[in-house]
């Protein structure tokens, strides 16, 4: 079993790097911006952390605020 697991390592590790990298990128963006197209900060934090790859992609594609308008 461990042999089998080891054979997966070369593929699991890069995948994990992408996952964690995207998650960190999304979290940095979430915490440095105040406005989101919809949802609020904590919804996006949860989505980005919970759903690997898809979560951060969803955030950047639809959740990210267009700009940080200082109008209301």
């Amino acid at each position, binding site marked *: 079993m461990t042999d*089998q697991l080891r*054979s*997966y390592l*070369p*593929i*699991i590790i*890069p*995948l994990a790097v*992408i*996952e964690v*990298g*995207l998650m960190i*990128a999304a979290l940095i*963006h979430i915490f440095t911006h105040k406005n989101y197209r919809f949802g609020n900060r904590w919804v996006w934090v949860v989505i980005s952390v919970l759903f690997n*790859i898809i979560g*951060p*992609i969803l955030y*950047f*594609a639809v959740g*990210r605020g267009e700009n940080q308008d200082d109008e209301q």
Partner: protein
Amino acid sequence: MRAFSSFLGKEFQESLRTYRLLIMVAAFVALGVLSPLLAKMVPDLLNGTDMGGGAILRVPPATALDSWGQFFKNISQLGVLILVIVDCGIMGTELAKGTLTNFLAKGLPRSTVIWAKFVSATVMWTLCYGLALLVTWGYTLYFWGNGPLSHAFLAFTCLWVFGVLLIALLILGGIIQSNIYGALLAAAAVIIVLNLVNIAPQAAKYNPISLAGGTVNLLSGHNTLGDYLPALWICLAAIVVIMAASLAVFDRKQL
């Protein structure tokens, strides 16, 4: 020419700063990694499953072709979906917001806008598709060695051309409706219609949708070149027609 290169530069900047490039690259590299992983996992997971009555499921170990099968399936479904989501606003957002007005009022030709958008989206799609291909190819080589693949170049080109067709459709839809929904509608409608047409088996040979999913059969040698060439030509012709229509419609559009 200067206006074109400036506006093309703006398109790339936009992809970078609105995270569209990041999304595409990350997603396609992930798909590239996922394809061999899934191919390898399926037999490992299924093997030894008790089918009941003492029968034990025996699945043959995966091969390079299984890995490529996963690649075509993932890219033609999830990959194409991501392409559509990332590029759906390419024309519509600008027209809906009116961000082009400042530039058109300075003498930027309308056709330049369309070509810059088409080229930038196609370059981005080529880059991401190429990355996914490279990653899957690397893992497939590592796990299963370099098996013989027939018509590899054409097999991979087919799916790429289908992606370009979708980009052209997103541009035309965005221009007609002046919003992202027009683009989404155009892409979705064409995919649905092509899938419906595909119900008739005689049509498959000419249907661009068979470029999207079926080309693994070309790699394995199940199908021959002749089974895909008509669809490929029709798809290329469709891209030309759609781009011509985009240029014509945009030139007549009142802004």
